[in-house]
């Protein structure tokens, strides 16, 4: 298994061999554990997706008589197709808003001063809060009885519906909360890239008489294209996993207007006990994330720096 080390004449070969063997001893336990805790469960999930497993009927556990039953159902399941559409809307708007707001804030914060450094740390807060706390915060703000926002609306005499129980607004409410939580992430990635922007680029454009808008549009944005794509992809992949916000704020409702595929799969598995069907949906979701991860790879270059 060991690939021979590059020859090194200053040291005896036995030392190199011993060293390599030692490294394998450090590595093997971890590979074994990783295999057991991640690969094996993935395999189990895949196998389960070919059974009609229903927790209320134990005989369905290893029943492979009709292996593709779940995958056939997927094509006919209206609610599943709708959930994918909800997912597209949620992902599109939240990623777009997070990139736009993150970019705006990064431009504002890209000034060296001690005040700005302190403020930058403040902006991290939403991103590092436990997701469940973020969900609680917005549950409070979206509940008209106790929300300071609805008190303000009342002062102005506006009759604003409760966003999370209104079918027209529930998804928007989730998008707002998700954007609040995650724009600091895109902001941080963009700020890091901005600090690598060579001053000469800006200087040259200024000498040519470019104004601030032209500078942003023709110099800064093209320079940031790479980091915008990578940050956007990371947020896109994470938006597929959105759970605590939906669970706490809307529970997928009203009706199923905020029911994304991940949530639907959760309901199938742990509310309706159709684990076999849920496994098949999940296999499809994993396939989608693998494709997206592969895209990240292609764009970033395997394990290399983003820039």
């Amino acid at each position, binding site marked *: 298994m060991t690939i021979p080390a590059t020859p090194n004449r200053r040291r005896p070969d036995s030392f190199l061999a011993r060293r390599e063997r030692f490294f394998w001893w450090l590595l093997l336990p971890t590979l074994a554990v990783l295999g057991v805790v991640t690969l094996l469960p993935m395999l189990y*999930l895949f196998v389960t997706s070919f059974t009609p497993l229903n927790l209320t009927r134990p005989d369905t556990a290893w029943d492979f008589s009709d292996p593709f039953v779940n995958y056939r159902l997927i094509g006919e399941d209206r609610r599943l197709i709708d959930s994918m559409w909800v997912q597209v809307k949620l992902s599109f708007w939240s990623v777009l808003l997070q990139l736009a707001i993150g970019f705006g804030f990064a431009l504002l914060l890209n000034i060296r001063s001690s005040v700005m450094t302190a403020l930058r740390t403040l902006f991290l807060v939403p991103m590092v809060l436990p997701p469940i706390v973020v969900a609680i915060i917005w549950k409070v703000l979206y509940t008209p009885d106790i929300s300071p926002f609805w008190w303000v609306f009342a002062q102005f005499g506006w009759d604003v519906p409760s966003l999370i129980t209104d079918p027209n607004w529930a998804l928007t409410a989730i998008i707002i909360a998700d954007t609040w939580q995650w724009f600091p992430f895109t902001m941080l990635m963009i700020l890091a890239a901005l600090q690598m922007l060579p001053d000469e680029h800006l200087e040259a454009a200024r000498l040519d008489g470019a104004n601030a808008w032209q500078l942003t549009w023709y110099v800064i944005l093209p320079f940031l294209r790479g980091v915008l794509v990578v940050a956007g992809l990371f947020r896109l992949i994470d938006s597929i996993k959105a759970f605590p916000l939906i669970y706490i704020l809307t529970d997928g409702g009203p009706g199923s207007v905020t029911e994304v595929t991940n949530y639907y799969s959760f309901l199938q598995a742990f509310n309706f006990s159709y684990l076999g069907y849920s496994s098949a949906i999940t296999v499809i979701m994993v396939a989608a994330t693998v494709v997206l991860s592969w895209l990240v790879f292609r764009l970033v270059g395997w394990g290399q720096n983003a820039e």
Partner: protein
Amino acid sequence: MPSKSQSVGRASSRDRALLIGLVIVLATMVMFPFVWLLLMSFKTDADILSTTPKFIFTPTFDNYSALWQGNFPRSFLNSAIVSVTSTALAMVFGVPAAYALSRMSIRAERPLSLLILCSRMAPPIAFTIPYFLAYRYMGLTDTRTGLILIYLTFNLALVVWLMRSFFDSAPRSLEEAAWIDGATMMQTFLKVVLPMSGPGLAATAILCFLYSWNDFFFALILTRTGAQTAPVAVVNFMNYEGWEWGKIAAGGVLVMLPVLLFSIAVRKYLVRGMTAGAVKG
């Protein structure tokens, strides 16, 4: 304030002051939801439900003491035990492996980063379903051991990736000197390499702790009452005992407290942890 003008903002000092003013206003807006929850946790139910929102009120610790008398301390303890143990396990296995990968002659970048990205990006339900089924047979449902194991799915890969990049950037001359002086491989690793890597080890351990502590989905599915973690306990104040806003707010504050403290300590590494697998630090 110290003014070292740079890149985009090559503005006059008046513009600068305006800009900083604008950022302070925006920061206040962004922080408001967070501050509101914090204030709420010190309010009485009457103040919470009052028709005019109260910024000035007599603070009370009633919500916190109510939590202290219930089952919440137990859940908090579960969260702490599970997060610390899973982090420790991931470090014990992952750090030596990361060192080996950094120093070995094999090229393991691609399979490793693929494995890490997949475990980082796959929806949690992909692991939850098989673990849920397996734990029913193994009797690990609603146990701390069960949670510790499933947290390894993301912690172990994260440790290997982050620590490898720390080891990659560490100088090798000291360990080579130790070998020449006759130290064994193990001695060199334990007495020379590890002590040099203090900051990297601390940052990695904190990130693992944060990910485990923040988990909601795994704990929601795999625990009932025995091993229930703090995030799940807070949510239960919404479902079973009516809407106890005071307790919910106080519980939320307690859950986020360790997270905020640790996050500030590792703020330099936050993005590195979140993009692990794709972007090298």
